[in-house]
């Protein structure tokens, strides 16, 4: 089975990063890391590959930089990567991203496309749905448990009140939610092998896609800082005070 997993390299969330003053784009450092939600996607892809003796191809649109984030996913066990690194794609909106990723995936036959529900840095959360339209395959969103058997993929779709069981024929696209599987640690051997796994770098024109970024971020504002909370000193009767406060705010 051929499995494509969409992954994103993002600036390390543990260290502060900047937005460009003019266009408000994220200033991307040379060393980026694998988006944490994509670790989940990679894990799902690897589990499907292990169950079906398949291969996992990573597909990513981002400046290559040191490729550190991609290598992290290869170290987990993915077989190869395709990265679309093109200056004309800077500041891409979700639609352009979906067109590029779909075009890259569509070059080869695939059975399953796995994508994270949303990225940690962009948060548009619509790319998987757009891709499924472009690739003309069903989109199984909010997938938590994933099984493939005999050409049929079955997922549990997370809902507000529980889950639905959804099945589809292959090929199909899965948008996975965080927390469904525990992403594996990259092993030492995996890390050592990662540097010799094939990484193909493409531009938009290699894919025959004309970048047409229609979106501009015109302003970025900080979240209004929250007011300090009230502190209730516990003199043994604090619970009464708290119950009263909760009643006032109509929480209880």
């Amino acid at each position, binding site marked *: 089975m051929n499995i494509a997993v969409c992954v994103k390299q993002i600036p390390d969330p543990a260290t502060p990063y900047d937005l460009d003053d003019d266009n408000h784009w994220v200033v991307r450092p040379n*060393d980026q890391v694998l988006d944490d939600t994509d670790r989940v996607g990679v894990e799902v892809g690897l589990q499907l590959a292990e169950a079906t003796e398949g291969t996992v191809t990573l597909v990513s649109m981002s400046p290559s930089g040191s490729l550190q984030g991609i*290598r992290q996913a290869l*170290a987990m066990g993915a077989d190869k990567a395709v990265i679309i690194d093109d200056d004309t794609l800077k500041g891409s909106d979700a639609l352009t991203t979906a067109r590029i990723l779909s075009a890259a995936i569509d070059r080869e036959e695939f059975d399953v496309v796995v994508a994270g529900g949303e990225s940690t840095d962009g948060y548009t959360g619509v790319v998987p749905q757009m891709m499924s339209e472009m690739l003309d395959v069903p989109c199984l969103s909010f997938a938590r448990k994933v099984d493939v058997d005999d050409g049929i993929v079955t997922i549990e779709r997370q809902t507000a009140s529980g889950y639905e069981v959804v099945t589809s024929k292959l090929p199909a696209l899965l948008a996975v939610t965080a927390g469904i599987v525990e992403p594996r640690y990259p*092993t030492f051997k995996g*890390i*050592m092998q990662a540097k010799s796994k094939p990484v193909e770098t493409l531009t938009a024109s290699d894919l025959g896609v004309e970048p047409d970024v229609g979106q501009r971020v015109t302003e970025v504002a900080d979240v209004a800082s929250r007011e300090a909370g009230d502190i209730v000193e516990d003199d043994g009767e604090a619970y009464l005070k708290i119950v009263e406060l909760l009643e006032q705010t109509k929480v209880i």
Partner: protein
Amino acid sequence: MTERLKPETPDPVDFLAIDDLLTGEERMLRDTVRKFVADKVTPNIAEWFENATFPAELVREMGDLGLLGMHLEGYGCAGTSAVAYGLACTELEAGDSAIRSFTSVQGSLVMYPIWEFGTEEQKQQWLPGMASGEIIGCFGLTEADSGSDPGSMRTSARLDGDEWVLNGTKMWITNGSIADVAIIWAITEGDIRGFIVPTDTPGFSANKIEQKISLRASVTSELVLEDVRIPHDAVLPNVTGLKGPLSCLNEARFGILFGAVGAARSCYESALTYAKDREQFGKPIAAFQLTQRKLVEMMIGVNTGMLLALHLGRKRDEGSLSAEQVSYGKLTNVRMALDVAREARSVLGASGITLEYPAIRHMNNLESVYTYEGTNEIHTLILGQAITGIAAFS
């Protein structure tokens, strides 16, 4: 010179930004071990230490990660650089010296001599299983009456027809009671040779040393060999004399000089957090000059220790590291770590004597680390000889 200094205050732990000196691959390896330790070791270590249990269930997981014999090539080993091996030791020992000790013994003291001095058959037979963690090894050099002076050992091996017959008692042997195989160093015809001895061989027994107050989460044992008969080809063919065990010890000491930094870092981090949080006389104890001095000394120890380790690691990877430089690193970094642990313990006050905080556990562990793999005194004498040209011991 650049024109101005960076405006940001350095990180309180990685103050010198040593992280920037690592490659992406090294950081990835380090992060893998750090996460493993955070998930599997840190939550349980106080209990293991208290109950004096070694977490045998982690061995296979360490094998799966590639931690065992990681710096060796082939035979199922990961084949990492020396720096990567060192960084892994730092993270493991930040968890507990017992866990690092286990990997040092397995990788550097047992797998390494087989890999370096063994026959192809011996390598095929032992290394893949040891790399995966199916087979646990121990290293028997020290005896009750033969510690710093291993040349005085009495354990003997003699050829009897087609078999070696081993007799003697080894003491202070890490992993002894849980090992499947032991590398036993013994005197034969006036020379020291290494033997690969399966621990289920008749005549071989191991007695766990109880009531120790250091490295409690590690198994330390006495090995008794009474007419242990092993095949002719169980000897390591390609080394004779003290050079054999000493080259193994050099491997392990290299891991220790990185590992000690991890133990120190763990102590410092816990003292720093505590000092900022704990209030006395109406302010955090971190606000007192005396405490700040302690914290700063700890921070400096951890950072210079890491720089030293990384420097020696880079030299090792380029093939220019000498045994005396390893002694320098082992001596300096273990001493530093012990100082940091004691200082951290004092910052933690009464809490510092409990297992809720890591300082006293590391402090006690480091007493062993100070003594094994060449005591502080022996490394001082090695350095003394190196700079004066005069041996104060033989």
